[in-house]
């Protein structure tokens, strides 16, 4: 039985965008319904894959729903899709955010046809990154994501949108340029682009030092994640991007970095990863603390959340380079939960901005009176972000820290972990302070007329809350799956 489910998941948005493109002068309603239908179909199929995913003992470390056909025979490259425990949660995350991003753009007025074409293309390319098991295919999707993001930021963004779009473009291109050189080296050494075959392969080469190869590959991922000091594109891109693009950017796009690190750098070059773990961990800790410290001082709501992402992605990096099975599971779960939590935060900021037309903390106050529903959801998102037990944030951070603290692979892990944990304290500080300033101060008269969330907005935000709660209360629903992908990778490190 081969339904090519993954191909459908990846390319349904593309089909949607082709339909949209072919309709001459469609109305805004037609366009958004088609976009929603395509994103929804992709989401439902990904849930089906999640349900049908083989969780038995024998399937550990196996790619499932595999599709493999020859693509570029000359360089031995295949159209090769598959998911394992590592990628499946991220695929679901993206399809979920795909639906949400259509919903949060429900009222878009400026050129909706083009807008939804780019959103759908963005969704497809990110899904492609998570599903491809061939390095060239992976790289192709990785680069493809740039174009829709460039347009989304520069046309539908605000503020210094062109500057932000360019910064994003150049940063990402530089990273992927090195990655391409790295990928070609890997091919020259091993003569395969097959990512499953490359995991655990003993790469030995006189052609290029393995350390150099490791850093060629990791620069692109480090920019994407982002790792301090390569993070400076992120606040600009986030602040100036339209809401849906911010949701996808924070929710799924950053995860391409963490995913790539685990999938390529750690599984292909475990020895080098162990060797350079202290260096990466130092960057992780700096990212956590520095990101959090900078966040406190932000007065633009979106910029604030953007910097908090830098801090939270530090936990992911910490979990990855603690190189312990538990910490890697924690890092993967943190990617998922940060995706939904920060996705929700950006959606909420978008809502507040839609209603009040400002994101400046100094101009906002006492909104709790005017928009009670938004306040509740925003607060839940904030609390999840600071890691309140019962939310996805707590589950992920706890597993990450527990795993990192106990890791024996890298020396000095407890020290790194303890410093990083301080980040949580600062996080509580800026989240609570932000909530207090926006919602609980003096109510301002000028916001008396503003409305609360409407039906569409409630659907999108409540579904976020449901996911956050579900993962928070019963994280095993994801960790069981993630573990199946992580276990074989963790075994490589022990070797």
């Amino acid at each position: 039985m081969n339904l090519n489910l993954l191909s459908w998941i990846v390319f349904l948005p593309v089909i949607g965008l082709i339909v949209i493109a072919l309709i001459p002068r469609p109305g805004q309603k037609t366009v958004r319904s088609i976009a929603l239908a395509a994103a929804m179909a992709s989401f439902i199929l990904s849930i089906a894959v999640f349900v049908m995913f083989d969780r038995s003992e024998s399937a550990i470390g196996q790619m499932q729903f595999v599709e493999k056909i020859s693509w570029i025979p000359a360089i031995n490259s295949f159209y090769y899709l598959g998911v394992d425990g590592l990628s499946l949660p991220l695929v679901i995350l993206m399809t979920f955010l795909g639906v949400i991003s259509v919903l949060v753009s429900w009222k878009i007025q400026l050129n909706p046809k083009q807008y939804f074409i780019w959103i759908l293309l963005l969704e497809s390319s990110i899904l492609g990154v998570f599903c491809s098991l061939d390095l060239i295919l992976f790289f192709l999707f990785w680069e493809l994501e740039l174009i829709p993001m460039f347009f989304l930021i520069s046309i539908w963004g605000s503020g210094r949108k062109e500057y932000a779009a360019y910064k994003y473009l150049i940063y990402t291109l530089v990273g992927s340029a090195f990655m391409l050189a790295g990928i070609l080296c890997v091919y020259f050494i091993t003569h395969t682009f097959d990512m499953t075959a490359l995991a655990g392969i003993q790469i030995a080469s006189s052609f290029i030092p393995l350390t150099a190869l490791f850093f060629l590959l990791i620069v692109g991922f480090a920019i994407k994640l982002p790792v301090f000091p390569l993070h400076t594109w992120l606040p600009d891109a986030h602040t100036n991007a339209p809401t849906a693009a911010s949701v996808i950017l924070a929710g799924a796009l950053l995860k391409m970095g963490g995913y790539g690190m685990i999938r390529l750098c750690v599984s292909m070059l475990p020895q080098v990863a162990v060797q350079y773990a202290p260096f990466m961990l130092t960057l992780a800790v700096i990212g956590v603390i520095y990101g959090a410290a900078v966040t406190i001082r932000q007065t633009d709501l979106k910029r604030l959340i953007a910097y908090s992402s830098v801090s939270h992605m530090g936990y992911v990096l910490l979990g990855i380079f603690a190189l312990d099975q538990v910490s890697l599971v924690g890092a993967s779960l943190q990617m998922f939960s940060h995706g939904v939590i920060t996705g929700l935060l950006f959606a909420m900021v978008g809502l507040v901005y839609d209603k009040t037309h400002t994101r400046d903390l100094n101009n906002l106050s006492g909104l709790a009176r005017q928009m009670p529903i938004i306040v509740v959801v925003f607060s839940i998102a904030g609390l999840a972000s600071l890691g309140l037990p019962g939310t996805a944030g707590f589950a992920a951070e706890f597993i990450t820290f527990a795993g990192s603290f106990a890791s024996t692979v890298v020396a000095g892990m407890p020290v790194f972990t303890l410093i990083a944990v301080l980040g949580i304290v600062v996080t509580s500080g800026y989240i609570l302070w932000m909530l207090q300033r926006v919602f609980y101060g003096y109510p301002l008269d000028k916001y008396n007329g503003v409305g609360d969330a409407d039906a569409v907005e409630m659907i999108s935000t409540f579904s976020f809350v449901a996911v956050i709660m579900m993962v928070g209360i019963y994280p095993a629903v994801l960790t069981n799956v993630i573990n199946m992908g992580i276990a074989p990778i963790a075994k490589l490190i022990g070797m």
Partner: protein
Amino acid sequence: MILDQIKYIAPELSLLCFALIIIITDLFISNKRALAVIAVVGTLVAAFFVLMLWNGQAVEAFYRTIAIDQFGLFFKLLILAATALVILASNVYVAKFERFQGEFYALLMLSAVGLMLLVSAINLITIFVALELSSISLYVLVSFLKDKKSSEAGLKYLILGSVASAILLYGMALVFGMTGNTCLTCIADYVKGMPVSNLPGTPALLVGLVLVVAGFCFKIASVPFQMWVPDVYEGAPTPITAYLSVASKAAGFAVIARILLTAFGMPDWLHNDWAMIIAVLAAVTMTVGNVTALLQTNIKRMLGYSSIAQAGYLMVGLAAMGMGSQLDGNVRSGLLFFLLSYTLTNLGAFIAIIAISNKINSDEINDYTGMGKRAPLLAVALTICMVSLTGLPPTAGLIAKIYIFSGAVDQGLLWLVIIAVINSCISAYYYFKVVKVMWMGEPASTDKVTSSWPEWLAIALCCVPVVVIGVLPGAFIALAQSASALFGI
């Protein structure tokens, strides 16, 4: 019998006949559009003859002066395609030439004849004659607008081109003097056994080799012979700029590859030497091209510098071919596949520019503001081409870069590949500048920019394959591999 061999140059002969027919017909008819039809038919007939030869035995005809092999035929098809597309795209533009439309088409085709002979020539004298045939037609075509800029461009091209020809001829004379032969395979026989210890005794041969390469560097616009490019590209009629940037460059690369690999492909120390020179030139060329392109405000000048940069990427493929004595399929066909994708992409970009500037009468990038609203489809086409030139998916540009760079890494040129990928990042800035102004600014006027159907056809014939190659490159790579099989010894 020499007459039996006529069939081997049937494509060139037929194209020549059609060029003459056009000149004669031009005297009698007033509807000049018919001339374009004859010209297109001429290229199709020639292409048909090329395809007839495709599966035949590789031969060396006319006393070993012309080789009929898939390598040459591949380039002939490329040149014919470029010629046909340029003719289609000139459909509206030729109105600027008033009564000289017939000559325009005829000269274009004569230049194509020259280039087609050039890519299959295997004798230094034939190479030189073919080169001059194409160049002299091009000198005239560049100054065809007869305004100040065009005349200046034509004169510059003539003077610098003549200097390059002189250098080339001098180099050829030295090579002939040292080896006693003008046929490439005979030179190869002489050079093959030469030990490295003979090097001090044969400096003249090496000087000759360097001068020959230098002469062709003019043609492919490599540093340090790239100075003519921006002025000539800006001043020449845009269809001719398009033609120069693809057909003439492709033929230049074909003949350099043929001379270097056939005549100087052995012994090892020799090909390693010239490969290293080409590699260094490639690095400098792409960097100079990209960095200078950043500052351009005129789109034709910008594409001029961009074509210098692209020549740099192409030279990466050439250097890779020289680096090893065993050439596997990927290394030897990288250059051809890149040229295929570059030709389609660059032509697509130029044709879109021709269509747009026919209406707005400007080549300034700022005047393209809001083109996404005034001419959405043209803007889409130009965007696809810019994305492909940058080397982003889903276009031929990315696959071509991956492919040509993978060959270079294979041959140990990792340092060059790293320079090249960084250059790609730089190039994103100016290619996306065009994209940015088209989609983001508000248009200066709300007039729609419309185009004629031949222009549409030409654009579709470029942009559709660009995307198709970007998604399913397998068959095209196989084509390039089979066309480069002769270097696979």
